[in-house]
C-alpha cells in the first residue's frame, strides 16, 4: 500500500517537477530578497545600537517610570489641563474647517473632468503630493517661527497639512462621480456652474464629509502633540510634566488624551453613520 503510494509520488514528481519544486531562478530570487531584507535589518539594528543589555536596562527604567506614574493624579492643574484639552480640540476643529474650505475649490480644479487641461491638473496634483511628504509637526515648527507661540500656529499647521491631502482626496472623489446627473443637468440647459452645483456636488458631498470627519478624528490625535513644539494645546503641558519628571501628572494627561480621543471617535462615527 505505502510502497505503491511512494511509487506514485515518485512518478508524479518525475512527470510534474514544477508542482514539487519551484524553478531555480525563482527560488534564488526569493532567497535573495530575504537575504537583502535581513541584511538591511541587521544593519539598522547595528546602527541604532540595539543590544540586549540596553533593552533590559531601558525596560527596568521604564518599569520604574510606570510605578512612578501610579496613581495618575492631576495635582492642582486639573483646570489648566482641561482648558488645554479644549484648546487642542479647537485647533483640530478650526484647522480641519479651514482646510475643508480652502481645499474645496482646489479639489474641483484638480479634477480631470472639471478642468480638462492635462498640464494644469498634473501640476496641481504634484504640488499636493510634494507637500504631503511634510509631517504636521514640521509645519507646526514653521508656523510657530512665523506667527509666534500659541494655538494659532497649531491651527495653521493643521490646516496647511490637511489642505494638500483634502485636495487630492476631493479631486479623486469628483473624478469618480456618475456622469448621468451631469448629462441631465446639461441637457436641461444648465451652464457649468449649474452642472457643478446640481450634478456633481450632491454626489461628492457625503464622500467629502466622511473624509473631513475622518481627518477631524486624526487631527485631534495629532493636535495633542503639536504643543511639544510650542503650538498650544495639551502637548505643551504633557512635555513640560515629562521634562520636570512629574510622572503622575503626565500619566493623568495621557489618560485624558485617551478618553478624549475615544469620545471624539464615538461622536464622529455617529455623525458619519447619519450622513452616509
Amino acid at each position, binding site marked *: 500500500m505505502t510502497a505503491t503510494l511512494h511509487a506514485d509520488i515518485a512518478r508524479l514528481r518525475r512527470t510534474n517537477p514544477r508542482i514539487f519544486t519551484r524553478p531555480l531562478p525563482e527560488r534564488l530570487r526569493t532567497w535573495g530578497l530575504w537575504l537583502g531584507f535581513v541584511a538591511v535589518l541587521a544593519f539598522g539594528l547595528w546602527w541604532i545600537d540595539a543590544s540586549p543589555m540596553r533593552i533590559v536596562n531601558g525596560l527596568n527604567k521604564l518599569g520604574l517610570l510606570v510605578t512612578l506614574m501610579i496613581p495618575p493624579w492631576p495635582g492642582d492643574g486639573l483646570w489648566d489641563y482641561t482648558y488645554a484639552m479644549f484648546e487642542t480640540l479647537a485647533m483640530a476643529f478650526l484647522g480641519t474647517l479651514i482646510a475643508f474650505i480652502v481645499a474645496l475649490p482646489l479639489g474641483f480644479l484638480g479634477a480631470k473632468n472639471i478642468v480638462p487641461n492635462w498640464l494644469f491638473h498634473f501640476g496641481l496634483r504634484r504640488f499636493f503630493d510634494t507637500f504631503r511628504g511634510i509631517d504636521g509637526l514640521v509645519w507646526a515648527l514653521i508656523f510657530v*517661527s*512665523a506667527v509666534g507661540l500659541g494655538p494659532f500656529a497649531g491651527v495653521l499647521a493643521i490646516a496647511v497639512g490637511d489642505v494638500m491631502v483634502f485636495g487630492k482626496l476631493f479631486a479623486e472623489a469628483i473624478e469618480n462621480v456618475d456622469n448621468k446627473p451631469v448629462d441631465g443637468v446639461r441637457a436641461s440647459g444648465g451652464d457649468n456652474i449649474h452642472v457643478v452645483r446640481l450634478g456633481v456636488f450632491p454626489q461628492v458631498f457625503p464622500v467629502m464629509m466622511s473624509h473631513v470627519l475622518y481627518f477631524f478624528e486624526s487631527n485631534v490625535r495629532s493636535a495633542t502633540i503639536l504643543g511639544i513644539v510650542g503650538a498650544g494645546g495639551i502637548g505643551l503641558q504633557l512635555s513640560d510634566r515629562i521634562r520636570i519628571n512629574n510622572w503622575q501628572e503626565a500619566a493623568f494627561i495621557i489618560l485624558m488624551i485617551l478618553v478624549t480621543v475615544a469620545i471624539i471617535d464615538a461622536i464622529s462615527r455617529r455623525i458619519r453613520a447619519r450622513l452616509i
Partner: protein
Amino acid sequence: MSTLNPTNGRLASTTRDERLLSFDERYRQQQFTRRNWTLLYGALFLAALIGAVAVSDFSIPGLVKGLPMAWNYILGTFPTLTLENFWADLADWYWGLRFWLRLLVETILIGFVGTVMGGIIALALSFPASRNLVENSGIYFAARRMLEFFRTVPELVFALIFVFAFGLGPFAGVLAIAVHTAGSLGKLFAEVNENVDPRPIEGVRASGGNWPMIMRLGVVPQALPNYASYLLLRFEINVRGASALGLVGAGGIGQDLYVAIRQFEYTDISAIMLLLILTTSVIDITCEAIRHRLIGHTLTQVA
C-alpha cells in the same frame, strides 16, 4: 358615501382633496422635523465654531497678518541660485549634504526597523485579537484593548518617554515607532484575519493541528499578501513620522531640522525639507508599485 370606489379600492369617503391634504400635511411635518434637525446641528456647529475661535485666539486680522508672514518666512528659506554661478550656489546651499545624507539614512532606518519590529508584535497580537480565531473572549478583549492603547497614545509621547528610559538617540525612536505601529497594524491584521476563508482552518484542525499550527498553516498563507501590503503602507507613514521624532531627541534628520528652524538658518531649512520631500516621494512611489503588484489596485491609502 360609503361605497367602494371601483377603480382603486379605496373608501370613497377620502376624496382626492382630502388625500392630497393629508399628504401635504405629512410632507410638511417631515420637512418640519428635518428642518429642526438641520437647525439643531447648525446651532451645535456654530457653538463649536465660536468656542473654538474663542479658545484658540484665532482671528481674521491675525490670519490676514499671519499668512503673509508665514509666506515671507517660506520665501525666505529659498536660497539665491544664480544661473551664471549655479553649481557653486548649489554647493553652498547643500554645504552639509554628507552630514544630512547620513541623518537621512538614519531616518529611513528608524522607519524600517520600527516597522519590522512593530509588524512582528502586531502579527503576534493580531491572532488573539481576531474574533474568529479565539474562543476565550477574555483573551480577545485583552488583546484588543492593548492594541487600542498602543494605537491611541501618540508616537511622539512614546518617544518622549522612551528617550527618558533608553537615552537620547535613534533607539528610542525605533521603539516608539514600533509600539505605535504594533497598535495600528495589529488592528488591520486582525481585520484581515477575520476575513479569511474558514475552510483551510477547519482542514488543519481536522488533521490534528494545534492552535499555532492552525494560525501558521490555515490563516497566514491566505492573509500574507494583505499583511505585506499594510506593512509597506505603514513603512511609508513611518518614514514620515521618523523625520519628526528628532524634535524630541529620538534620532534622525528631525534633530537637525529643529536646530535649523530654531537658529533661523533659513537656507538649511529648505535644503533639508527638499531632501525629505524627495526621499518620501521616492519611497511612496516604490512602495505603491510593490503594493500594486502584491495585491492589485484595491487597497487605497489610509492615513
